[in-house]
């Protein structure tokens, strides 16, 4: 086969693919009439919100669809083979041979009871004919581990997955996928479960490997930021249908479909423009001084407990009508900080001054009275509502606990429901009847029912789809002005922080590494860690400059130009 032919033949061709769901599902077809192709050395992103059918397509490529779900029309061609028509052996040769796949959750995707080296070996042994010698396999594994940038391969291959960090695990997954030099890599949301900095590294690694090997990459993501960073071509899916597809730059800059535009617009842009008006700074409303918290995980008798420092001298102030964003990667202690202020987690040391009293000293009834002024909205809208309590009751219960009559409380609840954009009749229904976004609105209404002065939003929009995220953020911004709420907004997503906050605190391993006004932190970060975080924001290159053409030689342009030259 000539070089040219190789380039021309797509490594993956999906033609008019339709996939049927089992009967009784919410729709008949998971995927309807989808066509696209991936060439060598090309990254194609499948973008869509949850339920759009993007994962189904990825699974169909390797014939890994769950039981009861099947291709009803169209065809998939991977490296000139149709997996649906292959026998068991052929299919096995294809899987992990010509096409390899990595998944969203690297921890659950690796066998927890097998050393990672063995798991990679297995991949080689299953495909290489004749079977290479043990020493050869060993050497291959080491090379692969080195190639994916893992330190100390000798030690690492003897590790179990649980002994590695999330990023390391995903690198192991990639090493495994690379073992047999596949022509196509399918990556199903490979970075969603990872921190931004890790996400950036993993995406870069995939990019590097692609370039080295000329692989085609099918990348599934819900994040247009990621698309902007890595994609050559984009396929936008909604309810199983292709809404729009084309070269990444084209789709991003000039989306044809309204839905695509919506999605792109919904991506938090880290726009610093509409920073809210100047804040009068009298006495701080809330003052946190030197909070200290170490979690100890007991590991049985005679073994030292594992210690995790969640807060190491954290101090902050919060003024009326101010929004303070607390950002940090997972394990930085940002949620613990919010919980400690709410007295849901007991700090080891420090003070939380609010309304002239130290909340930490309060017990029993005094604490209960003080709590009224502080409310919290949690991340998971599904876990935040008692499944056995009607929505109206959930909201009214708070005021009633402080002595409001039931009738008044219910009336208040209904007003609040209307205020957060739901109807009055919502009050008589149970939480399970609502979507995630609606639930989060209910949670907000519940938090506001006690007319708090401080609202803590703990990753309050992280579990929502981007379009819903934007709506809820807008609601919060409105309410803040309306009720003169002070807000602590805890998030891992710097873009959201930039959009909503007046001031930002950056946490790392329980310590505040940087603090300042949003504009300062985002435009002139003083700390390397902050810079790393900012750099890692997916799509930063694209979205930070809505004009796109000017100035900074962004990675996006760089790559697009380079790839264009190549072709």
């Amino acid at each position, binding site marked *: 086969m000539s070089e040219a032919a190789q380039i021309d033949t797509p490594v993956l061709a999906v033609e008019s693919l339709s996939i049927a769901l089992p009967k009784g599902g919410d729709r008949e077809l998971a995927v309807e009439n989808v066509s696209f192709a991936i060439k060598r050395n090309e990254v194609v992103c499948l973008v869509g919100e949850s339920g759009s059918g993007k994962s189904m397509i990825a699974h169909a490529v390797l014939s890994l669809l769950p039981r009861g779900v099947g291709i009803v029309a169209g065809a998939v061609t991977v490296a000139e083979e149709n997996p649906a028509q292959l026998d068991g052996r052929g299919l096995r040769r294809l899987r992990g041979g010509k096409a390899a796949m990595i998944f969203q959750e690297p921890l659950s995707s690796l066998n927890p009871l097998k050393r990672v080296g063995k798991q990679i070996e297995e991949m080689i042994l299953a495909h290489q004919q004749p079977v290479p010698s043990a020493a050869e396999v060993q050497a291959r594994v080491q090379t692969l581990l080195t190639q994916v940038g893992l330190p100390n391969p000798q030690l690492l291959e003897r590790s179990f997955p649980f002994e590695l960090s999330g990023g390391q695990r995903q690198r192991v997954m990639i090493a495994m996928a690379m073992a047999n030099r596949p022509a196509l890599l399918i990556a199903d949301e490979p970075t969603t479960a990872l921190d931004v900095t890790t996400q950036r590294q993993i995406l870069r690694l995939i990019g590097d490997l692609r370039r080295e090997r000329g692989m085609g990459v099918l990348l599934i993501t819900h994040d247009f930021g990621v698309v902007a960073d890595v994609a050559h071509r984009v396929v936008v899916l909604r309810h199983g249908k292709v809404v729009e597809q084309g070269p990444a730059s084209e789709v991003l800059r000039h989306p044809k479909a309204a839905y695509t535009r919506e999605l792109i617009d919904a991506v938090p842009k880290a726009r610093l423009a509409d920073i809210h008006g100047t804040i009068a700074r009298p006495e701080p409303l809330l003052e946190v001084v030197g909070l200290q918290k170490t979690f100890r995980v007991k590991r049985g008798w005679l073994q030292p407990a594992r210690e995790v420092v969640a807060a190491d001298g954290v101090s902050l102030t919060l003024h009326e009508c101010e929004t303070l964003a607390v950002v940090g990667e997972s394990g930085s202690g940002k949620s613990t900080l919010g919980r400690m202020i709410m007295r849901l987690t007991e700090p080891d040391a420090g003070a939380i001054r609010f309304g002239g009293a130290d909340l930490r000293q309060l017990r029993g009834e005094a604490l209960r*009275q003080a*709590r009224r002024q502080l409310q919290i909205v949690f991340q998971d809208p599904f876990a*935040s509502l008692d499944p056995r309590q009607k929505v109206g009751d959930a909201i009214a219960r708070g005021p009633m606990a402080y002595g409001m009559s039931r009738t008044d409380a219910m009336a208040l609840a209904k007003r609040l429901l209307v205020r957060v954009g739901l109807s009055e009749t919502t009050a008589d229904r149970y939480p399970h009847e609502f979507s995630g976004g609606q639930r989060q609105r209910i949670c907000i209404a519940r*938090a506001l029912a006690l007319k708090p002065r401080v609202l803590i939003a703990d990753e309050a929009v992280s579990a929502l789809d981007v379009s819903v995220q934007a709506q809820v953020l807008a609601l919060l911004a409105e309410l803040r002005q309306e009720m003169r709420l002070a807000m602590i907004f805890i998030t891992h997503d710097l873009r959201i922080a930039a959009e909503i906050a007046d001031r930002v605190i950056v946490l790392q391993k329980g310590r505040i590494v940087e603090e300042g006004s949003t504009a300062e932190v985002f435009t002139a970060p003083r700390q390397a860690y902050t810079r790393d975080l900012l750099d890692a924001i997916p799509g930063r290159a694209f979205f930070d400059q809505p004009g796109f053409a000017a100035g900074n030689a962004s990675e996006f342009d760089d790559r697009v130009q380079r790839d264009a030259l190549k072709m």
Partner: protein
Amino acid sequence: MDTVRAFLRHPSGMIGLVLLLVIVIVAIIAPKLFPVSPWEMVGAPFTPPGEDGLWLGGDTLGRDVAAGVAHGARVSLLIGIASALAAMAIGVVIGAMSGYFGGKVDLVLMRMTELFQTIPAFVLAILLVATFNPSLLTIILTIGAVSWPPLARLTRAEFLRLRHREFVEAALCQGERTWRIVLGHILPNAISPILVVTSLTVATAILLESALSFMGLGDPNLMSWGFMIGAGRTVIRNAWWMSVFPGLAILITVLAINLFGEGLSDVLNPRVLRRRS
């Protein structure tokens, strides 16, 4: 309502329910079905099934095995349910305290629970009943006393799970009082698995009671299935029916309760469904 409808569509659960209803009805109308005491010697010793109007045969003293099986249902169900409730009472209190208060309380209570769970429960039951002499009350309390650990652990796990669930913390932040949180939010959400396990405990309690009676540690005034099998053991060569029928009764009852309990579990615990989707 949904739950009921879902249960009605659960085939094995329904089989269990129907069987259970039949057994309960037999237990209720036993005195009408067999007005003569099951202890009364109505036929010749070792009457084979079907003869002399004893359709399940007669025992060593010529007592009606059928009457014994019917009246035994009352005893087995009574002891099964009462001791499961006793186990639930102990288990829920210990588990709730352990799960809600945590810390030292949890540590002490859970060590105790583990201990109770590891020691051979049946041997402990033998020891307790033998020490305090077999009677209805001692048997119920003993079975309760050896059956609570799973319920305590379950309750604790549920409480731990729910204690830090966002909606409970939200209730706390909303100023609701501890007792209201426990009774209004945690317990109602924990109750369905507890009920399921309690219903399965009824089954194990019946098995435990029958084993105790079989070992000669039943209440001598109560005609129970285990007692009947125990009495039939030595004469199995002469009268198989003495041990076969009461054993079948236990088997069917326990099976019915297990099917019912598992059906209940499937219906109340849609986690299985969620996982599937």
